[in-house]
């Protein structure tokens, strides 16, 4: 045991954290090759909200998501999902990775990719059955591309590929969703479809943590926002924390982005 200072899971180690927040992160630090990229992260996500993670390129947004999902090792930090350690709560979590993270030339159809979302509930040594495929088909219909189920995935447009990933997350039937840039390079129609989907998830009491790049739409789409640049600059309800000063602290020194932020604010005010 390296973490001897960690108390047993039964009693609440951090009384200041709410016990059954969908996600509570305590004192998280992550390093690549011994170089820390995010540190001192303390966060509690409110339940049933759409939460944006914003920050400049390289701020560590993807890293934050991956660290919570145990995909990369943590230097320190305690991650709890609905009050229990992450590993016990896997089935409650859905993940939409960045689109570039997979090889779209892989010989699988859209339906097969979506079916992967239910592999967790099928279990080892058991085959994929018709009912699993039916569930996947249903998820595809829900994101509006049911007719493309049989297509090999490289023959889909970028927006359609993004919808496949979302359908896969839907098929997971999770409570807490991690989405890494679902809005990247999609057209207006797809963007609207994704927003509608997020709203629907929210109405079902689910929590979505979404990495988002377009500052202009943050206030319209999200209830909460986490401003991240290697550490948490600010986190809270959008109306309270998404303002010029915080954006400057987050994007500080990057002029073009600062201008963009200013524009976003002007748009919000008007």
């Amino acid at each position, binding site marked *: 045991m390296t973490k001897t200072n960690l108390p047993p899971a039964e009693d609440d180690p951090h009384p200041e954290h709410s016990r059954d927040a969908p996600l509570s992160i305590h004192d998280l630090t992550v390093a690549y*090759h011994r170089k820390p990229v995010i540190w001192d992260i303390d966060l509690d996500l409110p339940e049933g909200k759409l939460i944006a993670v914003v920050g400049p390129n390289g701020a560590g947004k993807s890293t934050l998501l*991956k660290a919570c*999902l*145990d*995909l990369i090792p943590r230097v320190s930090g305690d991650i709890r999902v609905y009050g229990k350690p992450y590993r016990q709560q*896997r089935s409650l*979590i859905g*993940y939409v*990775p960045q689109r570039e*993270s*997979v*090889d779209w030339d*892989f*010989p*699988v*159809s859209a339906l*097969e*990719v979506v079916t*992967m979302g239910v*592999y*967790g509930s*099928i279990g*080892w*040594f058991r*085959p*994929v059955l018709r009912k699993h495929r039916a569930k996947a088909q249903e998820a595809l219909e829900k994101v509006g591309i049911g007719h493309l189920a049989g297509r*090999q995935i490289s023959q889909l447009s970028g927006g359609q590929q993004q919808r496949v990933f979302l359908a*896969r997350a839907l098929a*997971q039937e999770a409570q807490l969703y991690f989405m890494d840039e679902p809005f990247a390079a999609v057209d207006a129609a797809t963007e609207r479809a994704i927003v509608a989907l997020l709203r629907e998830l929210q109405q079902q009491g689910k929590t979505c943590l979404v990495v988002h790049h377009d500052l202009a739409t943050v206030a319209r789409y999200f209830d909460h926002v986490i401003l991240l640049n290697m550490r948490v600059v600010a986190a809270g309800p959008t109306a309270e924390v998404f303002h010029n000063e915080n954006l400057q602290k987050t994007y500080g020194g990057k002029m073009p982005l600062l201008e963009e932020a200013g524009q976003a604010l002007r748009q919000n005010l008007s």
Partner: protein
Amino acid sequence: MTWYTMDTWIVVVGALAGIACAIPGCFLVLRQMSMMGDAISHAVLPGLALAFLITGSRASVTMFIGAALIGLLTAVFTQWISSWGKVERGASMGIVFTTLFAVGLLLIVQAAHHVELDPGCVLYGALELTPLDTVTPLFWLGLGWETPRAFVVLGIITLVNLALLLLFYKEFKISSFDPNLATTLGINAQKMHYLLMSMVAVTTVAAFEAVGSILVIALLIVPAATAYLLTDRLSTMLLLGGGFGVLAAAMGHFLAVWLPEVHGLPDVSSAGLVAVTSGIFFAAAVLLAPRYGMLGKFLNRRPLKKHKAATPLSPEKT
């Protein structure tokens, strides 16, 4: 042309090697890790030599375990070097397997002073000689059925690989396509990676004695890559990969028997011709594959051009 029972055995052994190799081979191709097959099949050399030097015996089981372990170590070292040393995976594979291969050659040359452990045989194998080395695998049942040892070894490996593929089909599929998602679903992609690498190592070692390291690399990658060009489904790709392996073994050996008689070529190697045949299949697929081949791409473009030509630009647009 004269075809003996021996020739049939050679084809059967080659075909089994083809099937056994195609299974992990398809996943290597899909993970863009074809080099790993190359690396592991080179790195098993020092394993063979070390096992021999340490135990002093050429008993197959010892050599087999030694080589398979070193093969697996290649995968582990590669992973370490690329995750700790800021070196991308291709390069770290290169570092590991060239080093191990060099050590292996040194050891074999060393060992060769004591016993016949022939480096040439290691590279090219001795497919033609496999029917001569026989065992009686069912002696414990009191049966005296005599059969080539390579047939027994490769038969077992083929069955094991097929069983693993069927048992872990969806796990192999998801961890090859999206290892991060697999891990979040509780299917540890790292473990699946090492299971695949173990299959590569064991298959390589088993096939290698019969067909030599060059043909092993060819059979791991070439039929799988050929199949990849011809289909959009993973299951079809696996079937085609195995099929091309079998076809290459049959045609390759047939050519090895036929060519010397027809053209008076002296003594061509069956293993070599099997590799060449699988290469020809690949070239044919590159040219003729319906969707991903050159012809396919050409034909797919044509109707579009026709269509454009058929709708002349309206005058007001100019």
